[in-house]
């Protein structure tokens, strides 16, 4: 019996068929199941509404004594390897910080994934997903969370691999007037971690829907779309042939291979030869024409069928949050919210474990890029759009490599930022016709705030 129960499991399914006479074994099994369910819902004596603000943390017993903590009214969970695990409220954590006592959040007790799916483990790429493993795990999420998760086939790569989008939402099969946020990963083949973070975001939202009221609110009031792997052909080549491969697998016909998918979007495509290259053998070759590559075109088509309010495209590496413009050093205008959100995300990432993610306008903080995803999303669709370059911070610290043991910690670092962005979109979202008085004068203008979009266009 899994503690990950879908809503239909909350009812006593099957009892009529089996009758009321239950064997002792079945009674025990059901008691156990009910206990697990009870604990998952009301774990640690907290009701679901409160659980989101409570957190299990651990403290070093060399720095703190149990009587001292007991005097503060903290609930002890256990003592293990010199650390004391306690349940803490926000006030407790403020008090601990005020007393200069260091503590670690313990995601294993906080609903976050603590192990990569077994299907992803093994193989040349270790715990990272291959295209096939990702397909299996996305389908598994869909099957394990009916009503909350749906996997869409949004296109085919050059080599014929399916491109998948995971939609996470309450009543997922219906097109409801809700905020839509898109998370992309795996534009660049060698950036394996960029596939994992959006995948685990989807998994986190689904696995914690029942137990965490914050997650439930997000899922019930938004549509979170996740395309964890935009470039499956490139990823497979990176796994099986050359680890540092970046582009897709287009045969350019001149002996070179690949188009940089993150230079293939049509907004300011080919603006200059600094932000992308017309040379096929360049690592930033932009392709023969905008959206010449089916992988980028699939993202475009997903956009056309929806009305996203924000976008994050995960990449690696450098620990930076970029927002448009990338094609020009002209400062972006009318984007105060986008800038503020970047600062907010950076702050939330730092709050997890102290990791510092810089943020700023892409072309000013980093280098010029044109035909890039977030310029396109902001320039043509007017939505806040971010490239988050994940860890590490430098090539000497690992570059495009992350140890397998870092996958979940990097996800955990980035989780609050993603949730923050979704919640912001939810809070600002107004359904079509909202505020429309008899004269229609009260209807808000979508053009004035990129966070407010209509939801007339739908579908995967």
């Amino acid at each position, binding site marked *: 019996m899994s503690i990950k129960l879908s809503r239909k499991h909350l009812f006593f399914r099957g009892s009529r068929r089996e009758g009321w006479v239950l064997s002792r074994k079945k009674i025990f099994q059901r008691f156990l199941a009910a206990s697990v369910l009870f604990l998952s819902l009301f774990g640690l004596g907290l009701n679901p509404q409160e659980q989101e603000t409570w957190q299990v943390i651990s403290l070093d017993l060399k720095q703190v004594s149990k009587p001292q903590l007991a005097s503060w009214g903290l609930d002890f969970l256990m003592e293990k390897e010199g650390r004391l695990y306690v349940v803490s409220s926000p006030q407790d954590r403020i008090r601990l910080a005020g007393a200069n006592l260091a503590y670690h959040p313990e995601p294993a007790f906080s609903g976050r994934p603590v192990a990569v799916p077994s299907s992803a483990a093994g193989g040349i*790429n270790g715990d990272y997903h291959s295209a096939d493993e990702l397909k299996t795990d996305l389908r598994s999420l869909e099957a394990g969370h009916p009503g909350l998760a749906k996997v869409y086939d949004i296109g085919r790569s050059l080599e014929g691999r399916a491109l998948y989008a995971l939609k996470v939402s309450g009543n997922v099969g219906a097109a409801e007037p809700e905020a839509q946020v898109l998370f992309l990963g795996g534009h660049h083949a060698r950036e394996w971690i960029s596939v994992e973070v959006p995948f685990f975001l989807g998994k986190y939202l689904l696995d914690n829907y029942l137990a965490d009221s914050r997650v439930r609110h997000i899922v019930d009031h938004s549509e979170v779309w996740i395309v964890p792997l935009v470039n499956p052909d490139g990823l497979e080549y990176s796994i099986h042939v050359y680890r540092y491969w970046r582009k897709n697998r287009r045969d350019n016909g001149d002996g070179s291979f690949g188009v940089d998918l993150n230079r293939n979007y049509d907004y300011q495509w080919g603006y200059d030869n600094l932000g992308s290259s017309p040379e096929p053998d360049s690592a930033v070759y932009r392709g023969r024409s905008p959206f010449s590559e089916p992988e980028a075109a699939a993202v475009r088509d997903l956009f056309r069928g929806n009305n996203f309010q924000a976008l994050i495209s995960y990449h690696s590496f450098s620990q930076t949050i970029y927002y448009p413009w990338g094609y020009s050093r002209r400062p972006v205008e009318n984007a105060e919210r986008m800038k503020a959100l970047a600062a907010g995300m950076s702050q939330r990432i730092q709050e997890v474990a102290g990791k510092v993610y810089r943020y700023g306008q892409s072309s000013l903080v980093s280098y010029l890029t044109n035909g890039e995803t977030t310029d396109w999303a902001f320039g043509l669709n007017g939505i806040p759009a971010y490239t988050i370059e994940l860890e590490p911070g430098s090539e*000497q610290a690992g570059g495009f490599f992350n140890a397998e043991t870092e996958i979940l910690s990097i996800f955990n670092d980035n989780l609050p930022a993603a949730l923050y962005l979704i919640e912001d979109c939810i809070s600002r979202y107004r359904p079509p016709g909202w505020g429309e008085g008899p004269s229609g004068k009260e209807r808000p203008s979508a053009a004035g705030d990129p966070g407010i979009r209509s939801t007339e266009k739908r579908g995967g």
Partner: protein
Amino acid sequence: MYKLKIVVLLALGFLLAWHPFPLRGQMALGQYEEEAPVCTWNIFGPSGAAGLSLGDTMFTLAADASALFTNPALMTRLPSLAVSLGGSLQSADFFRYGPVNTGPLSTVGNAGLSTAAADLAAVSVRVLGWSVGLGLALSEIYDRPEAVARSASPYYLLSFSQSGYLRTLNLSLGREIIDGLSLGLGLNLVSGRWEWNLTDAWSGVTIIDSRTRSLSGYFFNGGLCWQASAGLSLAAVFRAPYQRKAASRSSLHYSAQSADILIQGSGEDTFYQPLVLGLGLACKFFDQFQFTGEMTYWNWSSYRASLLGEDVARDFRDTWKAGLGLECLSWLRLFKQYFDLPSRIGLVYDPQPMSSPRSSYINFSLGVGLYWKGIHLDLGTILGAENGSGRHLTAQRLALTLTVFSGPRPAKG
């Protein structure tokens, strides 16, 4: 004296057959997937120089003891004792393989690979009407031309190498069940190694991608041959489908000033080898001429490859390979001795299983033999030209086979 000769030949044959590490060698035409054998996917079995020069026909004529790998029934057509030893020289062109000409490494023109090998040891003995064969051969080679790109300033190094082999140990049994019709069955144990090394290094950073496989598996082969008339022989053969398994390990290591990251994997690779069926005929005419023709069907559409438990894409189609050969017998008197001098030519059509690009090889073969009493020395060569990949790959192989016969050849051999 006769018994001693048999014992010595048997001992020599078994000694060679059990030689644990055959040298590398096989014909090479250039293929792309990492598990692809050098030259061609359509390797039915190792054959001697005589079969090679007769258009790679190998299961209708009993030229030497290598027959046990291709059609064990042919052992009944050999003298009561046959011991064959073979070696070869080969060279081949490659274009796309591993990271070469698929992305990070480019070559100007095709890359070449040359190898030499002692690649065949087989013995066939007939006892109480049964023919028993034991052989060891190098059946597949996975080598690729080494590729290195480097620069001193800025420092940069990218190097790639791949090597490997598969050897087959065959134990066969054959018997003439009715007059002119023989059957044979062989058990084949395969084993081998495969290694891949890619090093990517630049200022302060080194990435080493190392992979190894220990290959193993077994399969059955068998066939029949029918002496339809004094001048006509017919044959049919099969090779059963089987799983070639590999204990596989991989290591991906990134080292830099502040990072030492190791991603390791281990597990089992599986390569599902297809069913192969073949038909052949050989007919004699004008006493001194002999014609052979063979066709083999390869059920490559059933081929599957799984690396560390994960299926990898291989879009293969079924293929038919065809070979034709013509042999002309003559003789030579030298040092007061008469030598038989068979000369041979052949033609082979060898389509490859990849659906894209569709690729096939046309091979032309040539050979000659020098036979004196029970000692046969055959020399054969095959020259291949590939069409379909756009790279005009070529391959050559020169094979030499020494066979020592003892005892009478069957009346209808």
